[in-house]
């Protein structure tokens, strides 16, 4: 028993010693960042030539009925339920598309690659995707392009030459600015905060965290980032992690940022149950429905997200248009059905628009 105690103490001491003083925030990736201007002047978008891939010898699909499959990162969470709804809505509006959503129950690249591979074999005309990993998914998407299939991504991109178009919900530096600005408004320019994310290996979250770090260093240098915790895509775990943060820092932490639509409501619930509404701000990305109770109770002032339904809708429209040939490499704008004209940036990215901010005044208008 003595041996056990000594070894466990040793283990704990050793592990405390491995903690690093991070210069970049934990959870960010190591790609170059490009923070926006603090005062909101839009970044000058340098025109970039088209850098997407193209299908080889695609058959003429103009006006014809096509079969499309939508392969999100995983199924079973509200975020991708609503993108799927958007895809189906566009398919109905277009009239000549039969679409279905098929995804693994885990956010796993191997499962996703296998799924896409099977659909290539089964002879679909179009593939929509949200990638679990931008590089890992590239080989199978290139295989799809080589088979003459139209490929359009949304939400989480792949390498540019592995798909024709990517519907970008918002630029990463735009998301970062939105979140940090909202946070600063609530906790002040010298407040301290922590982050709850999904996993450190999820590309989107890692990108946003890096951009947030750069933007905060540029525009709110006196703010303190405390730490980032992982909570997978599990709301109970997110709840427990948020609680641990609240317990650990007490009044030293003024805000929590939730990086996924799973983490933000869970963090809000943690703050509510700990009786810290109003003392700890919760800011983050979230679909409006789970946030309604907290926003209405005044515990959360606002949640940020783009319309995920619109995201799926735009992706489906883009796929149809590229199958028909009305959306071509080199286009600068794209008319996406009921969404109107969308900007095309960075060569092959279709920008959905700016993130929507859900507050007490408008949250009831949304249902997703």
């Amino acid at each position: 028993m003595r041996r056990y105690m000594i070894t466990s103490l040793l283990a704990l001491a050793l592990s405390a010693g491995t903690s690093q003083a991070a210069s970049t925030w934990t959870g960010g990736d190591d790609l170059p960042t490009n923070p926006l201007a603090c005062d909101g002047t839009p970044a000058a978008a340098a025109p970039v030539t088209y850098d997407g891939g193209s299908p080889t010898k695609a058959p003429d699909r103009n006006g014809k009925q096509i079969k499309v499959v939508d392969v999100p990162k995983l199924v079973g969470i509200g975020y991708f339920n609503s993108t799927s709804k958007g895809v189906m809505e566009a398919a109905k509006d277009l009239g000549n598309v039969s679409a279905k959503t098929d995804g693994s129950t885990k956010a796993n690249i191997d499962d996703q690659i296998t799924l896409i591979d099977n659909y290539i074999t089964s002879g679909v005309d179009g593939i929509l995707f949200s990638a679990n990993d931008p590089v890992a998914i590239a080989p199978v998407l290139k295989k799809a392009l080589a088979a003459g299939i139209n490929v359009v991504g949304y939400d989480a991109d792949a390498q540019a030459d592995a798909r024709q178009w990517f519907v970008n919900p918002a630029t990463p530096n735009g998301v970062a600015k939105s979140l940090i600005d909202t946070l600063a408004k609530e906790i002040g320019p010298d407040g301290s905060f922590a982050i709850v994310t999904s996993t450190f290996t999820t590309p989107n979250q890692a990108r946003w965290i890096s951009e947030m770090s750069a933007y905060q260093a540029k525009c709110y240098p006196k703010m303190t980032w405390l730490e980032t915790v992982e909570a997978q895509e599990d709301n109970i775990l997110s709840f427990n992690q948020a609680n641990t943060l609240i317990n650990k820092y007490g009044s030293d932490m003024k805000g929590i940022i939730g990086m996924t639509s799973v983490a933000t409501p869970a963090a809000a619930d943690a703050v509510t149950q700990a009786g810290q509404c109003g003392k700890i701000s919760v800011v983050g990305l979230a679909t409006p429905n789970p946030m309604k109770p907290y926003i209405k109770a005044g515990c959360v002032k606002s949640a940020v997200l783009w319309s995920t339904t619109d995201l799926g809708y735009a992706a489906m429209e883009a796929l149809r248009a590229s199958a028909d040939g009305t959306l071509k490499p080199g286009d600068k704008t794209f008319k996406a059905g009921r969404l109107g004209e969308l900007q095309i940036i960075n060569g092959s990215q279709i920008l959905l628009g700016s993130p929507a901010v859900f507050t007490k005044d408008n949250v009831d208008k949304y249902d997703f």
Partner: protein
Amino acid sequence: MSLHNISWRNLLRHETILAIVAVILLILLAFQSSQFFTGANLLNQGRLMTEVGLVAIIMTFVIITGGIDLSVGSILGLTAILTGVFWQNLGLPLVLAACLAIAVGTFCGFVNGFVITRFGVPPLIATLATLALYRGLAEGISQARSVRGYPEWFYVLGQGSMLGVPTQLWILIALAILASILLAATRIGRSIYAIGANEVAAFFSGLPVNRTKIAVYTASGFAAALAGVIFVSRVSTTRSDMGTGLELDAITAVVLGGTSIYGGRGSVIGTLIGLVVIQSLKNGLSLAGVKAEGTAVLIGLMLIGAILMTTVLNKRRA
């Protein structure tokens, strides 16, 4: 000797049933979708199932000895990460980096065997612990970063073909042949069966029980490590979450193939047929329009159904 004969007859019984099921399945699936039974598709499925296949073949050995190895998925992930780290961060030439990573993975398997034999920890618990440890090491060493941008020739392993057959499939076939011969016709193969059937008796018969078990777990680590390198080549990047859930896929294939979870019975052929059945189901159902969640339900039902059928038939015989 007579024990050996009986176990062969039993095995043959389950494998033949399974083989018949497999053939029926393939025919049904071929009718459901015209793309299923094409050469290109079948070869492609072979490519996709190599990682699980390598691990499952050696898992057969492990389970026959009465043990189990839950850490294979984590060893795969760790090897994948180390390949990237050795190549990019330490600047080693890629071939050396990959070999070194495989060596580390093999060592992880050795540690499993060591803990199980020298400390007497039951295999389920030991590999449950190392599953967490190795996965954690993968995440810590990689700092959640991916390594990408490998030279083109490296992708031939995972994405290319040799003589029209996917490269990694040759490796799988080679390992399958080697493993079958080892298990069926060598002394170490017979030791493995004996240990699984009755470890105490095997020990008192003078068989090198501990050494054989360590060898088996080390081989399991090696198979997982090799699968890790192949996986990296197939998807052209490394991630610390690669291989999660691999152990359950491998165990499903092994058990479906007729290997008894209590040890003492099993064959590589059975595992291979099990692999083929599962992969064809996943592929064929998807081609027929069944979604991923429906396929999961069907595979679960099939696993229980197949073993139920075998158990009932064996009870009837006995």
